[in-house]
């Protein structure tokens, strides 16, 4: 049974006994969790509990910090992402990421969207245009920008920039999208649009989202993981977590008693 290969087609990520240290400080302690295909998995927990650390480990962005050390396994479709044979470049085209602060490149809107396809060898102009259109449509931005694709991305509003970043991420057609508090820098209307968007992306992509907003987690996610001080306290269906949590600490957190 435990031959390291996940049998279940529906399990995209299978995290097994993951520990992570920044130098001497342990930030993740023995995390075990599964992320299911075409579901939205929310990660919640008080500040500093390791949410960002965890999500950045999933596409190995965390390795950009030299002092980081990990043990344990993260199986992505049965393959350990820490395995020597896995190239981060390949992993990251399959696992896209959207950051807390919108981070478009100081280039045109079009160039932003086709950045991924371009660096991964697609040169055909018509195909790039097609990709740009599809991605911007999927990111619900097309109508707002179709007449100014050559304008600088920094002329867009914060919410538009974030959707542009989602479009950029979609352009390489990833399998998973990781989002680290994608709406925390946005106003309520822009937040609402992104939430709508996440809901519509679910059918094609597997999404994992870090959020500080309990309401947001409840609104958009299918499953919720609650982290506390580097530990995964509880992981269950969102409806269960928010109505009938098993752990006292989860209950305290979601009812706002601490954190």
């Amino acid at each position, binding site marked *: 049974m435990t031959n390291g290969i996940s049998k279940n087609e529906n399990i995209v990520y299978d995290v097994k006994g993951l520990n992570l240290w920044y130098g001497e400080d342990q930030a993740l302690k023995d995390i075990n969790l599964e992320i299911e295909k075409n579901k939205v998995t929310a990660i919640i927990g008080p500040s500093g509990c390791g949410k960002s650390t965890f999500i950045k480990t999933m596409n190995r962005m965390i390795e950009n910090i030299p002092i980081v050390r990990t043990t344990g396994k993260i199986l992505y479709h049965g393959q350990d992402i820490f395995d020597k044979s896995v190239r981060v470049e*390949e992993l*990251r085209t399959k696992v896209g990421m959207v950051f807390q602060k919108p981070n*478009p*490149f100081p280039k045109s809107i079009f160039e932003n969207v086709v950045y*991924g396809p371009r660096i991964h060898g697609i040169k055909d102009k018509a195909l790039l245009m097609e990709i740009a259109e599809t991605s911007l449509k999927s990111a619900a931005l097309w109508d707002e920008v179709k007449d100014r694709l050559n304008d600088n991305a920094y002329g867009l509003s914060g919410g538009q920039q974030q959707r542009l970043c989602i479009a*950029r991420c979609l352009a*390489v057609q990833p399998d998973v999208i990781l989002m680290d508090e994608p709406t925390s820098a946005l106003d309520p209307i822009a937040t609402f649009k992104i939430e709508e968007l996440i809901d519509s992306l679910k059918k094609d992509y597997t999404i994992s989202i870090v959020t500080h907003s309990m309401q947001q987690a409840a609104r958009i996610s299918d499953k919720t993981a609650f982290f506390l001080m580097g530990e995964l306290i509880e992981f269950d269906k969102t409806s269960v977590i928010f109505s009938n949590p098993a752990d006292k600490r989860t209950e305290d957190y979601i009812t706002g008693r601490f954190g």
Partner: protein
Amino acid sequence: MNQETNYARKDSRMMMKDINQKLPDFKVNSERIARRVKLNNFLKHVFSMSTLFAIIVLAVLLYRIGADSLGWLNLGFLSRNLSIFPEKAGIYGAIIGSVYLMLIVIPVTTILGVSTAIYLEEYAAKGKVQDFIKINISNLASVPSVIFGLLGLTVFGRILNLGSSILAGGLTMSLLVLPIVVVASQEAIRAVPGFLREASYAMGADKWTTVRKVVLPVALPGILTGSILAMSRAIGETAPLVVLGIPTLILKIPSTIMDDFTALPIQIYYWTLDTVLTPEYANLAAATIVVLLVVLFVMNSAAIIIRNKFQKRF
């Protein structure tokens, strides 16, 4: 930034106490206050004189040079070649020499300088090697230019047997301004926000792709500004070339980089030295200075325009 955050750590109450001790006691004494305000205003004017002095000197210098060059600076002067007769002398050869020099300095310093900066900022582990290279380069920037001349004389002139050719002069000059390009490029690269690199890596880009497609384009204006400033330093430098042993009178216009040459600052130097015997040489030197200053002005304006136009877009 750093200083502010560090400062914040200091107990602010302690700081106020510090300040209080350094100030005179404040017994309300209107006579004293009036005296203090008077002194304040008086010294303010004294201090402004210093700034004014610098401006006056600049004005006098420009005026003198302009006046001396009057009647000598004309198209003929720019298009004629050197001659020992003042009326027949021109700086065409010197202009060509300076242009050639730049044709060597620009590629050599940008390739070496930008590469070094990229290595230091993007690749080198933040540690001993990086510190070592950094210290060396910043120290290089403070070595007197005449010593670069000695280096050029030995390495390019003697060992590589390039004599006082354009190539020897260009390489010597390149080493001289290299630190400027390295430091400016480093600063420009460091100013590229980390979130842009992150965005690129998260798209599955490798490091080189990220550097080429994201970091360098964003850092380009800064790199360009630094490079232009380096070039303007190179175009006005005299000592290293003189040390290389450039002949006083070059009548032939150089046609290859192995030819002997003269350059604008060299010409100014030789003419200035000989003004005792031929007073008109002072006019020739002044006219050449005007040309040099105009070139520098254009280059520096370009640098400033680039800097202002592309500053801070995030």
